[in-house]
C-alpha cells in the first residue's frame, strides 16, 4: 500500500474519532464512529488482513452501529447542554493524555525492529479467510465454543436486563 493512502486512512480515522468525542449530539457521534471504523477496516486491508476488514465492516459498521443509533433514538437523547465544566478534572485528563502520547512516541521510536519494512508475503491459492478458519477450528476450537457460549449468555442477559422492572 502506498504511504499516501495509508496516511489518508489514518487521517480519516483520527479526525472522525475526534469527531466522536467532540460532537455535542450523540447521533453525530455515532455516525462519526462508523466512518472511523470504516477507515480502520481500510487499514486492516492495507495489512493484508482482508477477512478482518470484512468482519470489521459487518460487525462494527453494521451491527454495533445500528445498536448505538437504536438506543440513542429509543432514549431520545438531545444534544447535550453545556454544563459547568470541572476545570481541574479536564486539566488532569489532558495532562494524562499528553503524557500517554509522549510515552507512546518514546516507546515506538525507541523500538528498533519497528523501522524495518514488512516482509513480503508469498502468494497462496487460499485466501486469508481459509488460513484464519484453519487456525480457528484446529488450534482454537475450545475458545471458539467458549465465545459462542458467551454470546448466548450475553443475549439471555440482555433480554433479562430489559424485561425486568427496575425499582
Amino acid at each position, binding site marked *: 500500500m502506498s504511504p499516501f493512502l495509508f496516511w489518508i486512512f489514518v487521517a480519516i480515522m483520527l479526525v472522525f474519532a475526534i469527531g466522536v468525542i467532540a460532537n455535542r449530539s450523540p447521533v453525530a457521534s455515532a455516525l462519526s464512529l462508523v466512518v472511523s471504523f470504516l477507515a480502520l477496516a481500510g487499514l486492516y486491508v492495507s495489512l493484508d488482513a482482508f477477512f478482518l476488514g470484512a468482519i470489521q465492516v459487518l460487525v462494527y459498521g453494521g451491527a454495533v452501529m445500528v445498536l448505538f443509533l437504536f438506543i*440513542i433514538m429509543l432514549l431520545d437523547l438531545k444534544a447535550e447542554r453545556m454544563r459547568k465544566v470541572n476545570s481541574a478534572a479536564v486539566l488532569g485528563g489532558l495532562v494524562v493524555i499528553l503524557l500517554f502520547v509522549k510515552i507512546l512516541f518514546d516507546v515506538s521510536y525507541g523500538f528498533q525492529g519497528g523501522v524495518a519494512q514488512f516482509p513480503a508475503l508469498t502468494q497462496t491459492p487460499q485466501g486469508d479467510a481459509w488460513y*484464519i478458519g484453519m487456525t480457528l477450528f484446529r*488450534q482454537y476450537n475450545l475458545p471458539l465454543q467458549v465465545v459462542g457460549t458467551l454470546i448466548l449468555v450475553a443475549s439471555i442477559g440482555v433480554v433479562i436486563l430489559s424485561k425486568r422492572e427496575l425499582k
Partner: protein
Amino acid sequence: MVTLNDYLIASGLLFAVGFAGVLLRRNIIIIFMALELMLNAANLSLVGFSRYNVQNGLPDYNAQVLVFFIITVAAAEVAVGLAIIVALFRAKQTTHLEDLNTLKF
C-alpha cells in the same frame, strides 16, 4: 515506506483519542463509544504485529484469530452495555454521569 512504527503510532493515537473521550466526556453513551475506539486501537496494533511477524511467507494468524475473538466479545459487550444503559435510563431518566452519584463516597 510504511513501517510497523507508523501503524503503532496510528493505533496509539486512536487509543489516546478514545482515552480522552472516557476522561473528558460526561455522557455515558459517548463514553461507551470511546471505549469501542480503544478496543479497536488494540486490534489495529495486533493486526500490525501479525503482518510484521511473517513466517514461511504467511502472517501470524494467531494474532488475527485473537482479533476475531476480541471483535466477537466486543459485540456482546456492546449489547449488554447498552441494555444496562437503557435500564439505567429507565430508573434515573438521565445519561449524564454527574447525575449518577448513588455509589459516590
